[in-house]
Every structure is written in structure tokens, then in C-alpha cells.
């Protein structure tokens, strides 16, 4: 192996311009990978943070509600929600537990007929809005609701109704037994949550939602929060074992749609993006190595005549390719990390494409890449993969050179 390493290093200096170009190709590939993977990780973490805030690290609901989750059936609720909150808050590892009601409503201004402007209405204690959702941070105007009859609207919903802070809207929801249930709400604030679909929401106090749903003292769910979203599985298991909660469905955020598939989806995107970059960069390495094999046919033949085996020949070219990739990889991940770190401060505006994402997948229009050691190591390893992808064919071709064929080749 020593001689192969020595030859590989020496051969890199043989055509320095070509080696430099190939190193730069790999550097560009690994740099792009570092930025792309950091970006996707940033989106994933953003999604997780949003998921945790929006749906709770752990959710406690009626089992039937869990089965019909998408329909948000008010009939399957938690009648004594205070008892459920108390049981959850008594569990070590739980930071908070908040009752929450979600229902679909249609809305209109006072002077309009109830039309087709739909909104997802949330009812929760003010602490949930300030401590968990950070709704006050996202206020673009006005304030949070302080009493029944007040609401905060997402900007998309407000724009559709053409209503501003100080305006009044009529929302039409339903009670737990399915009867229509209207409410007159004063708009006290508008929020911009960074996504057009997510901005189609309405936020009121829990008591207001309880009144709308005819659910006094109850809620449709209790959202439990832990110190870290990674603790959710453990806390969910502990809550399930509590006798007070045994009648309910207790599920961690990552066990529920759409978050059970967002992670896998983003991982698939990471895989596809990585695969494309590895393939394209591998072509660059392939070109260099093939040229090198062609130029050195005679030399390879001489070494084969002297006893170099076909597997040693393959190894020699692969070592060369991997050495190029190692240099390129170090340069690439260094530059890529710098760019990713910078972008993690200023963010990348993805614009309208993201705004059209399904409402259940809360992607923000501006994403902040997340550069981590894991990402850098992965990008570097994928850089080595580029070398193997680009080096295999030339190495195989080199190993097929017969010594007698090389003897016929005269310089």
C-alpha cells in the first residue's frame, strides 16, 4: 500500500493544472453539498420547531378524535380538561400542558354574507400563545386577545376578508353536537407566520372557543411541551402509563401526520440532492482519471510487466481519486461551512413556491441553513463517494491493461 500511496501523491503533481481543476470540482461539489444539506437541515429543524409549537411535543386526545384527526370532530373531546392538564403537568420532564380547541370556521365582515373564506380557529390560554407559539413575536400589528370577543387573524385570512385591526368579523363554527355556532369577534391583532397557508388562521382565548363549541370546561386536546422535542417519545410513553390518562390517546408529535412524513420527505430530498451533486462531481473526477489512464497506458503496462497485479492497479487509481477528493473535500466543506454559517444569519428567501406548500406542512418562506458537524462530516464523506463514483471506471480500465498491450504502445 505504501508504494501505491507514494505513486498516487506523486502523480497528483504530474499535471498540476488538471489536478487543481479536479480538486476545485470536488470542492465545488462538497461546498454545494454542505450548503444544500445545511439548508435542508435548517428547514427540518424549522419544521420541527414549528411542529412542536403548533401541535405540542405530545398530544392527549380522545381515541376517537385521534382516529378522525383530519375532521377535528368536536364531539370527541376531553370534558374535564383540567384533570388531564393536571395529570400531564405532574409528569417529570413536562414543561407545560395547555388545553386547546381547533375547529374549522368560515368568516366574513359584518357587512358581508358568510362566504367561502375558511380559517382554522384556535382556542387556547394566553400562555400558550405567548410561551409556546410566540404569537406576540409574529404580530405584524395590534396585540393578542385579552378577553372573549377578541381575535388575532393571520394576514392571509385578514386580507381575504379585507379587514384590519379594529375591524369586526363574524365567524361561523359549530358546537360539539354539530349545530351552527356564530360569533362576533373584534380583530385586535394580525400575525405573519411566514407562510400564506399558515396565515389563514384565527386565534382566540380558550373560553371563547369553548363558548363557540359549547364545550364549557372542556377542550379537544391537551398539548404537552417538553424541554426538547427529542424527549417527546419518552414523555409520551410515561404519560401513557399514567392511570389518569389511560383512557386517552397519547402521541408524540412525530407519530402524527403530517409530521410523521415530513422528516422522511426531507430525508428523501437530502438523498436526491446529494445523489445528483455526487453524480455530477463524480463525472468530473471520471474525466480526469480517464485522461490519466489513457496518458499512462504505457507506464501502467510497464508496472504490470514488473508484477503489479490488476487489483493493485485498481487500488492505485482509486487512491489517486480519493486523494483528490480528500483535498477538494477539505476545501469544499471549509468554504461551504462559511457560506452556510453566513446564510444561517441572513436566511434564504424561498418565496412563493414554499407559500404554496400544503397547509399541514408549515414551511417558512425564509429558511435559515443549519451548519453542523454532522453535515460537514457527511458532505466530506460524500466527497469521497464522488471520488469512488468517478474513479471506479478508470481504475477498472487501468486494471484491464495487459502488459503486452502496453509494450506495443511506443511514446
Amino acid at each position, binding site marked *: 500500500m505504501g508504494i501505491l500511496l507514494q505513486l498516487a501523491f506523486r502523480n497528483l503533481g504530474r499535471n498540476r493544472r488538471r489536478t487543481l481543476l479536479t480538486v476545485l470540482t470536488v470542492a465545488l461539489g462538497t461546498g454545494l453539498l454542505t450548503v444544500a444539506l445545511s439548508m435542508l437541515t435548517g428547514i427540518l429543524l424549522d419544521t420541527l420547531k414549528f411542529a412542536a409549537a403548533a401541535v405540542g411535543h405530545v398530544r392527549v386526545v380522545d381515541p376517537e378524535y385521534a382516529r378522525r384527526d383530519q375532521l377535528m370532530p368536536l364531539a370527541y373531546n376531553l370534558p374535564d380538561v383540567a384533570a388531564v392538564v393536571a395529570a400531564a403537568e405532574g409528569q417529570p420532564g413536562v414543561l407545560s400542558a395547555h388545553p386547546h380547541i381547533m375547529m374549522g370556521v368560515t368568516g366574513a365582515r359584518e357587512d358581508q354574507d358568510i362566504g367561502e373564506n375558511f380559517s382554522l380557529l384556535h382556542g387556547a390560554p394566553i400562555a400558550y400563545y405567548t410561551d409556546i407559539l410566540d404569537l406576540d413575536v409574529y404580530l405584524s400589528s395590534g396585540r393578542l386577545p385579552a378577553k372573549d370577543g377578541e381575535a388575532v387573524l393571520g394576514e392571509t385570512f385578514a386580507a381575504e376578508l379585507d379587514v384590519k385591526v379594529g375591524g369586526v368579523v363574524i365567524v361561523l363554527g359549530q358546537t360539539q353536537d354539530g349545530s351552527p355556532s356564530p360569533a362576533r369577534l373584534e380583530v385586535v391583532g394580525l400575525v405573519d407566520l411566514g407562510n400564506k397557508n399558515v396565515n389563514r388562521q384565527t386565534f382566540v382565548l380558550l373560553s371563547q372557543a369553548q363558548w363557540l363549541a359549547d364545550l364549557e370546561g372542556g377542550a379537544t386536546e391537551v398539548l404537552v411541551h417538553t424541554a426538547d422535542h427529542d424527549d417527546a417519545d419518552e414523555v409520551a410513553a410515561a404519560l401513557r402509563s399514567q392511570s389518569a390518562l389511560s383512557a386517552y390517546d397519547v402521541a408524540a408529535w412525530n407519530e402524527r401526520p403530517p409530521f410523521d412524513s415530513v422528516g422522511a420527505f426531507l430525508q428523501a430530498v437530502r438523498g436526491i440532492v446529494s445523489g445528483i451533486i455526487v453524480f455530477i462531481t463524480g463525472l468530473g473526477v471520471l474525466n480526469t482519471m480517464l485522461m490519466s489512464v489513457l496518458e499512462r497506458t504505457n507506464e501502467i503496462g510497464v508496472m504490470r*510487466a514488473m508484477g503489479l*497485479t490488476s487489483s493493485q492497479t485498481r487500488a492505485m487509481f482509486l487512491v489517486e481519486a480519493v486523494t483528490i477528493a480528500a483535498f477538494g473535500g477539505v476545501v469544499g466543506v471549509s468554504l461551504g461551512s462559511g457560506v452556510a454559517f453566513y446564510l444561517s444569519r441572513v436566511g434564504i428567501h424561498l418565496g412563493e413556491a414554499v407559500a404554496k406548500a400544503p397547509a399541514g406542512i408549515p414551511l417558512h418562506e425564509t429558511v435559515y441553513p443549519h451548519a453542523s458537524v454532522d453535515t460537514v462530516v457527511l458532505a466530506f464523506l460524500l466527497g469521497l463517494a464522488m471520488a469512488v463514483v468517478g474513479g471506479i471506471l478508470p481504475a477498472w480500465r487501468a486494471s484491464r491493461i495487459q502488459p503486452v498491450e502496453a*509494450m506495443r504502445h511506443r511514446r
Partner: protein
Amino acid sequence: MICQLVGVTKSYPMGDLLVQALRGVNVSVGAGEFTVFAGPSGSGKSTALNLLGCLDRPTSGEVFLDGQNVATLSDDALGAVRARRIGFIFQSFNLIPVLTASENVDLALRLAGVEGSRAERVEKALTEVGLKDYLHRRPSQLSGGQQQRVAIARALVKSPAIVIADEPTANLDSTNGEAILDLMRQMNEEKGVTFLFSTHDPMVMARAKRVVRLKDGEVVADEVRAPS
């Protein structure tokens, strides 16, 4: 006897034609010989040399090296035979350009699996060919004659059973060519190294102890002669 071709034929496809490079050749080379395979282009001398050097396999017939039939060995086994028992000297010197003179010679030992004392053997081999002061020069820093001397040291450093030299003076001027031939002849006489050449150079033939002439793939003459 070091090596032997027994009833060897070798044919190559060339387009739609099958070219008969060797037609039932029988020839033996004994230890300590300084033998030339001579003949015009297309006579089959290089093909015969390739077969005796274990670089190629015959279409039919047998090739023996130290009594072992090597015609049926696998690629890797043939490679091992070449690495340990056969030295090569080429027309174009064919040194590895990224290695120094001593590293080129050392490469032969490493590929032969020689462990330990390599540095002494390398220095001794290069000293014997008159290049003691050029150990760390790369091929591009050496003249053609010096490069061929490195190639001779590379071929001899592993003490092979036979040295195969394919037109070793063809790329040298007459002065350097004669000096190289004298050096090889000296190695042959002083150390008993067996040399086998292919050439049509009269200068090489004049120094040979034996000349095997080939024509159209057949041995047409085998002359043992008094050295000049």
C-alpha cells in the same frame, strides 16, 4: 536450461484476418546465455520474447521457465513470476517519471515482495551501472543513456533468472548504445546474468554469444558464435 518454447504458435486477429506471428517455434535458452532473437519486422521475434517474458500466452504449445509450464498460469500468477524471476529492459527505457532513479529501482524490489535491506541493494545496483551520484534524480533529469542504465539496474536488482531486453539500444546514439551493451555484457560475464534480446541492430548482434534468426514466424537459423 532457463526457458523454452515447445511447439509454440501464436496468432492475432487483425480485422478479418488471423495473423500467424509464430508457427510452431521450438527454442531453448540456457543459463548465462547472451542471446539475440533477430529478424526483420513481422518476423515474430518480439512475440517470442513476450512469451518467454511471461507477458503473453501462446495460442498453442508450451512455455517453460525453470522447468515450470507457465502457459497455463493465471494473470496474477504470471505477474508474480515476472515480478520475482524476470527483469525487463525496454526500448524507450520506460522509467516511472514521477519516481527518482533509486525509487524506480526500489519499485522492482517492492513489487517482487522483497522486505528489508532494499536501500542497500538499490544503491549497489545503481553504483554497478555507474549512477552512484544520480540516485535522487528523476528520469527527466537524466540523459537517455543514463535512463537506460537505471532500467538495467531496475531489471537486475532482484537477481532475476533472465533479463528480457526489447531493442534496448534503439533509442540511443551509437556511443551510448555501445556503452549500454558493454555494461550488459559485463554483467553477463561477471555475474552470469542471462540476457535475451530482440533486435535487428548489427551492433547488438555483433556482441551476442548466440543469434536465433526468425522469419515469418519460424526459426530459420540458430548460430552460436565466438564473442567479438
